[in-house]
């Protein structure tokens, strides 16, 4: 039933256009992408003008490297960007479930696989498009104002980071399908992402081969153009986890009862 998948996908797409998610989420990412290179470039001037430094202070800030700026951009995406994405999509299934629109859909001969994967693909397209737009902005201004680094390093780093986004967004969808509260979906997703990041920052050896290292690997691409061992394990483990989460969610979703007792 491929055509049914398309119908469900189109519904998601139209919904996100009508409630302007397709406008404001990419906008947030573009702004985040712009800000990092521009503030890095003008930081000395900004401090001079507004920093309240005593008269006559000589500012000698070493100019940041291109890799540093791009890493900073991804840092922004990981914080504000993820927050925006998770808040925008935490209710993707929960809300339909709680409002009762879900049963109106599932009482039609709708395959649960189609229902969930249509949402998943739409979610990924919107978040990855936003990421690409924002990151392209960042790269453009970094090259223009600061420094250039080989384009292949940039692309590799971005691809690895895109997988990290995919992983986090899959968690949002799966939790949204399985839990009953939007707040808990957001809390659990952001919590997982933060735990992964913290552990891979302070105990990288422990986190070797997990999705948590992906952001670190993308930085290594920017700085060095090559990654340490364990990279491919991380990639495959992440892909495996994404697949496993989707299969498990579809399986559990199939067993769920959606009609609520109103009595």
């Amino acid at each position, binding site marked *: 039933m491929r055509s049914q998948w398309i*119908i469900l996908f189109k*519904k998601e797409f139209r919904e996100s256009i009508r409630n302007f998610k397709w406008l404001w989420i990419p906008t947030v990412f573009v702004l985040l992408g712009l800000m990092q290179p521009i503030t890095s470039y003008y930081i000395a001037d900004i401090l001079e003008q507004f920093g309240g430094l005593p008269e006559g202070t000589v500012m000698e800030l070493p100019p940041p490297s291109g890799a540093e700026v791009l890493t900073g951009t991804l840092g922004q995406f990981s914080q504000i960007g993820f927050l925006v994405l998770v808040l925008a999509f935490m209710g993707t299934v929960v809300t339909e479930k709680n409002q*009762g629109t879900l049963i109106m859909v599932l*009482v039609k*001969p*709708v395959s649960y696989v189609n229902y969930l994967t249509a949402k998943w693909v739409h979610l990924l397209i919107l978040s990855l498009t936003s990421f690409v737009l924002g990151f392209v902005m960042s790269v453009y201004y970094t090259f223009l104002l600061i420094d250039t680094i080989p384009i292949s390093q940039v692309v590799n780093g971005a691809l690895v980071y895109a997988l990290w986004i995919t992983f986090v967004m899959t968690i949002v969808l799966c939790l949204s399908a399985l839990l009953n509260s939007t707040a808990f979906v957001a809390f659990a997703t952001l919590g997982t992402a933060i735990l992964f990041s913290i552990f891979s920052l302070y105990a990288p050896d422990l986190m070797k081969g997990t999705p948590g290292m992906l952001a670190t690997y993308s930085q290594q691409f920017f700085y060095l153009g090559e990654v340490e061992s364990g990279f491919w394990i991380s990639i495959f483990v992440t892909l495996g986890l994404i697949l496993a989460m989707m299969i498990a969610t579809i399986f559990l979703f199939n067993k769920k009862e959606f*009609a609520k*007792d109103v009595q």
Partner: protein
Amino acid sequence: MHLIETIGLTKKFNGTVAVKGINLSIREGICTALLGPNGAGKTTTLNMLTGLMNPTEGSIDFHEDYSGDRRKYLGYLPQYPKFFGWMSGLEYVVFAAELAGLSKEAAKSRAKEMLELVGLAEGGNKKVSGFSGGMKQRLGIAQALVHEPKLIILDEPVSALDPIGRREVLELMKQLKTRTSILFSTHVLHDAEEVSDDIFIMKKGEIVVEGSLVKLQNTYQQPTFFIETEMEMANWLETIKQKEWLRHVKVDKNKATLTVENLQTARTELLSDKTLQELKLIKFEVAKTSLEDLFMKVMK
């Protein structure tokens, strides 16, 4: 062969039994009512039929001509239908039709036809979020019907509506009987009497009375006389108390309600009764008791 037959259908929620082993058989081409007070297990039963709930025990068999996913042959209107508020009425019905497998063109023309049928042709382009309760109910019926299901299941279709909306939906249901089979739940006996052919009365998760409306009426309805006179009737009533056609008398000064066994005999005897004539008749009315009495008796 019936359209749907359930055998020993049971649903338990954490130990409490909501539906206790009921056997339903829904005939094709007619309107069936599932009648009962709130909490009788009507909604739970309907949810199991639609597949939105899994029965704890028992089986549901659909007509053998309609194999595969049962949902293809069912249209469903929940008690509180919820739509995507950002869609227009027409968009929603088209969406529902496409989900059920209709092609884009077919979906569009069927959706328009259905909106016309339920009287929403004008409001089709309005956002659903701006619909009134009655409009939402009718939109719900349109989306349930759009893929030409063999059976539409309506959960309390008129309960939440004002008198006008209620009348509209009941009239609509009468029209729909010519197109498809209907199964609907209600706690209002009058609605069931008005549109349905078969009635199942549920109480505390069990079916207590079932049968066709005609059969129930014949079994449980009795001919009744309402008599009103200028003078008090108590003494006269004493004289007829022994008549074998009389079943039950209720008297209030100069008004009396007589439930009788045989309409013909009772009428002839009453009208030729000299004493009654002397009491100066004001009103002499022949009627039938409604099923209300049965319903109340069952529900006690």
